[in-house]
């Protein structure tokens, strides 16, 4: 995967600039930075959602962005119908969705409610359904925007385990997060964003200590 160029949002503000990044198969990359440093913009550019005004993004394999879980779900459709809908929004085929239906329902622990319309669900249940679908696939390249924590502690723990499993299964993972402990543990390489630029890139230890150095000032 290679990202290259800049994205401009708004007439004078450059959301990303001077990005030249090559990520190799099998790498786990962590991205850190303050709020508004364009971490999410970089991730969305990698996912092909934003088109760079200059430069290009190229990938090899299929790519999946884990963010805004549950987008497009509909409250009048049943849980099961929403699994189909959300799955297709994430780009899966009918066969894939049929294949993983049982597993998704089981993971979400919503067996009794799965044929009820979504409007009868609590917000926690909706989020559980969304996460269960979003984390059920194994893309070649996985992009994660902030590790998702919803539901009761039990589900939160299980969903985090599942995301870890997903990251193990995916060839390449790019992760935006604020939990440095997690990043330090799993990343091969990290980069720190500042005002749309890649400020530092290096090993997790290097980048995190640099981050504290800069932020400490």
């Amino acid at each position: 995967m290679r990202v290259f160029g800049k994205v401009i949002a708004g007439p004078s503000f450059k959301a990303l600039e001077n990005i030249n990044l090559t990520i190799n198969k099998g790498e786990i990359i962590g991205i850190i930075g303050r709020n508004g440093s364009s971490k999410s913009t970089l991730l969305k550019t990698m996912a092909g959602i934003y088109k760079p005004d200059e430069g290009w993004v190229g990938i090899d394999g299929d790519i999946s962005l884990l963010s805004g879980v549950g987008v497009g779900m509909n409250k009048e459709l049943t849980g099961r119908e929403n699994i189909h809908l959300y799955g297709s929004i994430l780009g899966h085929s009918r066969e894939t969705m049929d294949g993983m239906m049982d597993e998704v329902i089981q993971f979400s622990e919503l067996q009794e409610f799965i044929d009820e319309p979504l409007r009868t669900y609590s917000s926690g249940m909706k989020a559980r359904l969304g996460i269960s679908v979003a984390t059920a696939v194994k893309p070649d390249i996985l992009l994660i925007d902030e590790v998702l924590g919803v539901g009761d502690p039990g589900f939160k723990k299980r969903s985090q385990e599942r995301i870890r499993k997903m990251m193990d299964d995916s060839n390449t993972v790019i992760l935006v997060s604020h939990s440095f402990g997690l990043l330090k543990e799993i990343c091969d390489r990290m980069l720190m964003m500042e005002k749309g630029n890649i400020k530092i890139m290096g090993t997790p230890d290097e980048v995190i200590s640099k981050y504290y150095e800069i932020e400490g000032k």
Partner: protein
Amino acid sequence: MSDEVVESATDTKKYSLRPFHSNVSAFSAPFKLLSNLFSNQYLLRNLVKRDLNQKYNKALLGYVWTLLEPALLASVYYVLFIIIANHSEANYPMWVLLGVISWSMFARILNGTVNSLTTNSGMIKQTNFPMEIYSFSAAITQLVITILSLFVVIPFMFYLDIYPSWTLWMLPLSILSLMITAWGFGLIFASANVVFPDTAHIFRFITRAGFFVSPVMWTYEIIIERAGVDSIYFDIVMFNPVVVPITCIRHSIEGTIPEFETFHLVYACLFPIFSYIIGSIIFLKTSRGVVTRL
């Protein structure tokens, strides 16, 4: 760095990567857009199902509303028109009904397509599937509603002693041409509407005013009778691409064949085709670039 940035997308070949947003040539755009829709059939089906559900499932009368809505609307127009124009043609209520159904579909698809990027901004910023899917699924939803609505003419046909005849072949063709005209023409302006929200206001005006210059309350034959074939008003009216298809829809039910000048017929056939071609080129070239402005 800036020298490298100028390198074009062709150097993705150096890395044997599949580039996002590769440039689509104007020639291939109409085909590319079709193939995008074709490869996302499952998503399209789910989105249409969602929209229909949203609209009708919770309502007490459900899908009966697809019949009731045009019937109620047409009866209002009919009463108004009887009072104002004192028109006493027996088939007139059915003409208004067919006009209302066809025009509503056209106006909704056109406005829906022009607004398709702004109304779906939430989803567009989270997903990377082809953006023409939003407007196309909305157009299909309207098509389904229209087809259901058309059953409302059956009681009128009984009442007026009209039997379905072979001219019905014009019906699907005309409806399809209305749909493609609205969708293709809307695609031309969908990206512009993100940058200049005034576009939506202009189109809302066009569809409101268009109601009066389309054969909903009047018919093609009435215009010829009142204005005459040589009048400038007739030429202006025939500039409206929906006159021919809506007239054909009416005649297809009544079992007659309308008489058009060859030029008007060719114009009506070419309009949807060129709308789609130009719409697909402009949409594929510009839509991804405006996502950051949503």
